[in-house]
């Protein structure tokens, strides 16, 4: 298992006239960061900045695999709120296209496809177009493609929106398995209980500030709060 380390220092990012300042956190292999905040607080903006889709105003993002600094972009798997797949292509075709775009060999793609389809229980649906998928199937398909190149960091932006309880639980299981494999997971969600339960680290964005796990714990301890819901309500 690789030793992965991801550090964000003093990062400031913005979207239109709104910005999030002093973002500081670090994650290691197996860490799961739950990113919480109100709608429009800037979770997606932060994620886009972390994966390189947006340039930060200030700060640094560092990524190390086995103590060797590597670019984030090549090692990140990102699943956006909406499914990022070609809707009129079959799942198999989506896998092949993205596999090729990510620079994988055909044999590697086929191997990864076999593993991931089995893992996410979509073996029998690979020849269906994405438009023919249900919401849950589409999300699973999206995560399959996200994991196709076996990224070290997996970022899932609101992955549970519109999913039923069973599927949400299934997905959490899969995510945790990935963390157990030594991947770094960043999940943004409004499901605070599930975040608190499944993630070992939490990041909270409120009014342009990012509170990392330690700050969150200190804040909850200071205010004698026991759950994230209480913090959120406050």
């Amino acid at each position, binding site marked *: 298992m690789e030793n992965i380390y991801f550090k964000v220092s003093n990062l400031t990012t913005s979207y239109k006239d709104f910005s999030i300042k002093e973002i500081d956190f670090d994650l290691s292999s197996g860490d799961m960061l739950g990113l919480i905040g109100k709608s429009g607080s800037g979770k997606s903006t932060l994620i886009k900045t972390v994966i390189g889709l947006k340039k930060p105003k200030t700060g640094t993002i560092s990524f190390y695999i086995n103590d060797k600094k590597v670019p984030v972009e090549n090692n990140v798997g990102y699943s956006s709120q909406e499914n990022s797949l*070609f809707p009129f292509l079959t799942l198999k075709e989506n896998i092949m296209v993205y596999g090729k775009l990510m*620079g994988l060999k055909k044999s590697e793609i086929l191997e990864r496809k076999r593993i991931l389809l089995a893992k996410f229980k979509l073996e029998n649906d690979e020849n269906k177009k994405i438009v023919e998928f249900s919401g849950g199937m589409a999300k699973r398909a999206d995560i399959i493609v996200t994991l196709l190149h076996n990224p070290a960091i997996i970022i899932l932006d609101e992955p549970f929106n519109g999913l039923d309880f069973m599927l949400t639980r299934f997905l959490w299981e899969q995510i945790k398995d990935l963390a157990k494999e030594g991947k770094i997971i960043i999940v943004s969600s409004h499901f605070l209980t599930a975040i608190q339960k499944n993630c070992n680290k939490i990041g909270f964005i409120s009014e342009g500030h990012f509170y990392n796990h330690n700050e969150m714990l200190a804040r909850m301890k200071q205010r004698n709060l026991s759950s994230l819901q209480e913090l959120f309500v406050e």
Partner: protein
Amino acid sequence: MRKITKTIPLVSASLKEFVRNWKSVCMLLLLPLLIIGSFFASFSTSGLQKIPVGIISQQDVELEEFENLLSGILITNKFDTLEDCMEELRKYNQYACIDVKKDRTYRIEMNYDNTRTLVIWGIINQVKSTIDYIKKQKTIEVTSKILEQVETGPQYIDEIQNDLAALDNALTVQTRNIDNSVQIINSGLISIETGLDSLNTRVSNINSKVYSLGSDKVVYSNSIKSSLNTIDGYGNQLIALGPPSSQYGTSVKSNTNLIKSNINNYDSKVDSAANNILLETNQISLVENTMDSSSSEIRRKVSEIQSINWDLKNKKTYVGQARDDLDILEEYFSKIEGISPEEVADPIKLSFQPTYLPDINPDIIRRFQDKEQDEITRLIKGETLLSFQVIFPKILLLIVMFISLLTSSFVCLNYIKSPATARLKTIKGMFFPSFFSIYIASSLITLIPIVAVVLLGNFLFLLPFVENLWIVCLILILTISINVLLGMGVSYLIKDKTLTLLVSIFMLLFLLFFSGFILPIERMGASPAKIATNFPGNIGTDALNKLLFYDQPFSSLKINIISLMIILFLLCSLILFIKKIREI
């Protein structure tokens, strides 16, 4: 290489996305093919629709020929008054009202609806050429009659020529006779004058002899008388001697007296004779003088006759001149006779020689075997095919413009708005592959209807697309690329589907206008015309025209191709810049 390996799957994905979306297939493939089909079908092979025009004429005006000639493209409707026709024209039921009046000549007044400019000029030209044709026929008719009359002219000239020749001969004979007569008179006059001179001399001789005879008579008479006086003396002496002797003296004396008396008688008679002679000679002299003056008069008159004769001789040159003039007149008549009535009716033959005529493909002739020969000619080499052919490159490039611009906008916006884009953005090095994938996918989608149109042009309209395949492909690829890039540029710039569609339509209208399809470039103002000329569609059309109609070599198309390449390069750079700025 890595860029290409990324581009190919993206192109494939874009194409599959396009093909599997029935809406896009309908809107960007089937609909354009349908539109193209209906567009070409609108150019009916049976020609133009017949257009109604009204005719108003007086009872006595014969219009059958006029109407028959116009019936090819026009339907003529008769009206009683111009007002009736004009009322129908204002209701858009008639395109023109032709009022035909006749007094000594025909007067045709054409009232046309100039709000329908595109069609009306065709009608005006048709009416004009019909009238020109009739005018020509009438002129031929009248000229033929005139020329028939002119044909009798030379007969009269020949008669005058004969009369003049006779007159000429008569004058020659007359003048010659006068010359001879004058000569004879002159020699006669000389003889008379010589005779008169001789007579004059003789009269003078007679006169001098008469005078000499008078003086001799006086001398001889005096001498005789003196001798007689002497004899008388002797007689006296004898008388004095008395008888016998006195008898003798008396006889002598009476004889001498008798002699004297005789001498005196003779003298008187001689004098009287001499006087008579002198009187006669005087009369002769008088006659001689009269003759002399007559001779002078004759000589003067002869001189006058001579001068008249000279005049006559000179006047004879007028006859010659008149004959020469008649020869010229005859030649002039013969020239007039040589003129054909058609030459008079239509002295300036305006011949229109089109520089481009389509070849007839034997396969096509075979295909139309069951049709009438006229129809085959009309279809294959006639106006219909020709008008199709000449407009085809422009239509082709308009179709290229429409389809490639709309398709690329659609494909580009599909990419921008695709959920897949969010993930694609996370993959490193996707800037150029995403650009080229849209470009290639749009171009490939565009190629399908364009190839269909090109094949239509090649096999139905007989344009040599296949013969010049590689240059045609080069021109089409360049123009498709430019329009695809324009569509991509608009989409990158706006990013919004509805707005992009609107802007694309406005842009197409703008391009349509500047392609010279609505208003010919030659009729635009200087600056817009310059802009329009340098529009890629027009540069492409120009190149295709040169290639397809006049089989120009690549060297003459070089400037068009280079211009298109420059535009493509500049546009490509601009679109990449927009893509970068807009973070797509």
